[in-house]
């Protein structure tokens, strides 16, 4: 069985600085893979490469065997990869529901002229867009329901903004969701919720998920597999236990020689 998403020898540098260096990565259907690594390890760059915001200097990125390198980001999303952003890039002045509806652009067809005269086909499609948006929002229970639909996104709390980002990514109807630090800035209760949600996304939603996360509790709770990066190079891969105890990983997080001094590597770095 070939993997759903495959990266082979992907490299990227910015002005001489190698951010990703010959990276191989495979994500199988309905798998949750976590990417960990210290700040500056190249995790977000990896996401940007997969989604087409950056073009790799070398290497191949394939979705179901189809090469993605060189495609525009919106084409890649249409092929089945959607993401969230670490820094939160919601459409702040649009309502919650509109945010989700906007992401269905690639899945719908009605052109501007049909929209102006409101043909029956266009209205049917519009109803479907509404319906699907409501479904996606319903995934988050009461958090994003009811009166919140018509509120502008900027009025949401931080945690809700993270949830809305996920809902918006879901609305693009992808096969793979790339989640960039979904639990950042959340309190323990919300973090717990997000952990459950990610599992639910895979189990009920049928998504394959690639996630960047710093919170080791979250990583432990959700991951089928964990990949650790440092300076753009993969330094470890395997189950959470394998990776978390790998001396190279501990060294990367805590600095050279830290592995010997700090036996208690349990403390997850922020």
């Amino acid at each position, binding site marked *: 069985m070939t993997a759903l998403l495959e990266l082979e020898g992907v490299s990227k540098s*910015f002005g001489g600085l190698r951010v990703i260096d010959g990276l191989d990565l495979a994500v199988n259907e309905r798998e949750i893979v976590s990417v960990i690594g210290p700040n500056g390890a190249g995790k977000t760059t990896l996401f940007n490469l997969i989604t087409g915001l950056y073009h790799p200097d070398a290497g191949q990125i394939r979705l179901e065997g189809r090469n993605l390198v060189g495609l525009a980001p919106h084409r890649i999303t249409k092929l089945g990869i959607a993401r969230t952003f*670490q820094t939160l890039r919601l459409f702040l002045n649009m309502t919650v529901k509109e945010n989700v509806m906007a992401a269905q652009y690639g899945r719908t067809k009605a052109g501007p002229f049909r929209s102006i005269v409101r043909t029956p086909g266009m209205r049917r499609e519009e109803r479907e867009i509404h319906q699907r948006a409501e479904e996606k929002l319903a995934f988050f229970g009461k958090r994003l329901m009811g009166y919140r639909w018509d509120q502008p996104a900027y009025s949401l709390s931080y945690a809700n903004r993270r949830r809305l980002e996920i809902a918006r990514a879901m609305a693009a109807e992808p096969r793979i969701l790339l989640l960039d630090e979904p639990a950042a800035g959340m309190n323990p209760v919300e973090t717990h919720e997000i952990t459950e949600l990610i599992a639910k996304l895979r189990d009920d939603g049928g998504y394959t998920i690639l996630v960047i996360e710093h919170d080791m509790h979250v990583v432990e709770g959700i991951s089928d597999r964990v990949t650790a990066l440092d300076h753009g190079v993969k330094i470890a891969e395997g189950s959470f236990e394998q990776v978390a105890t790998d001396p190279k990983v501990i060294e990367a997080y805590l600095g050279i020689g830290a592995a010997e001094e700090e036996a208690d590597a349990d403390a997850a770095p922020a």
Partner: protein
Amino acid sequence: MHLPLLNIIDTVRQLGWGGAFELLRNGIVLGSVYALIALGYTMVYGILKLLNFAHGDIYMVGAFLGYGVLSILGGPLAPTIAMVPLILLMFLGGMLGSGVLGVVVERFAYRPLRNAPRIAPLISALGVSFFLANSALLLTHGERFNYAMYQLGGDPNTGLPGPLNQPAFSVAGRPVTVVQVLVVSTSIALMIALTLLVSRTRLGKAMRATSYDREAASMMGIDTDRVIASTFFIGSVLAGAAGVMFGLYIGETYYLMGFLAGLKAFTAAVVGGIGSIPGAMVGGLLIGVTEAYAAGYVGGQWSDVAVFGILILFMLLRPSGLFGAKTIQKV
């Protein structure tokens, strides 16, 4: 039937090297005026991300203030005081007056909008531009005042050159006059002063910090309102100097002169990479020289079209301007 291209080649041949130099000279002199105005644009943009459309009108006010000093102190035919202090006083009046005006404009039209959507101060700037230009129209009845009425540049009757229009030196048989040297050297001096101010002084540091991140700067104890006011003051002082220089060189001041000059300076700032100080200088010169060559070789009516056409091409090829930082999009 003449093909336009052949016409141009003909003209180039006809004008020869002397003509080519003359056009270059014209372009550099005019371009250094644009560059000074562009500096004000670019500084304000750098710090507030605001296109200060009223900047051209501050330049216009500077030119009128210089004229005011000239008409009070310089008698029509023989100035009542010596020429050098007279010119210095004109610069002083034009620059200080414009500087104060810039601060007042910032205080009344932009500061209350500090936290408003970005487009609001833009409209406010248009309002200021309307206000200043039409106030000048009201006060001058739209008349064009001519610095050359006073015998600095030359005798208006005989056209004999005055002290400012005497040739200072010549290249390829084409003279470069005193006023042209004055304009170029003054603007170079002001640009050096500005560069030193931005790179060496406390205020310069505060300006750079504020333009990088206003909020962070204010948390670090920088009084950002004062820094912004100073930026407006300095930018307007430069515009005032440009106004006086233009007056001395060309002679004419009138109420709408700020608009087109502002447009060209804005262009210069963007071509150079908006926010960049050396960019504004080079952009200004580039515009001036392009304009001169287009007018000289292609024809007066096409000079603006040529400038716009070349710049459009340029922008399309290098969208962030000459000195604009090519930023990596941070995601």
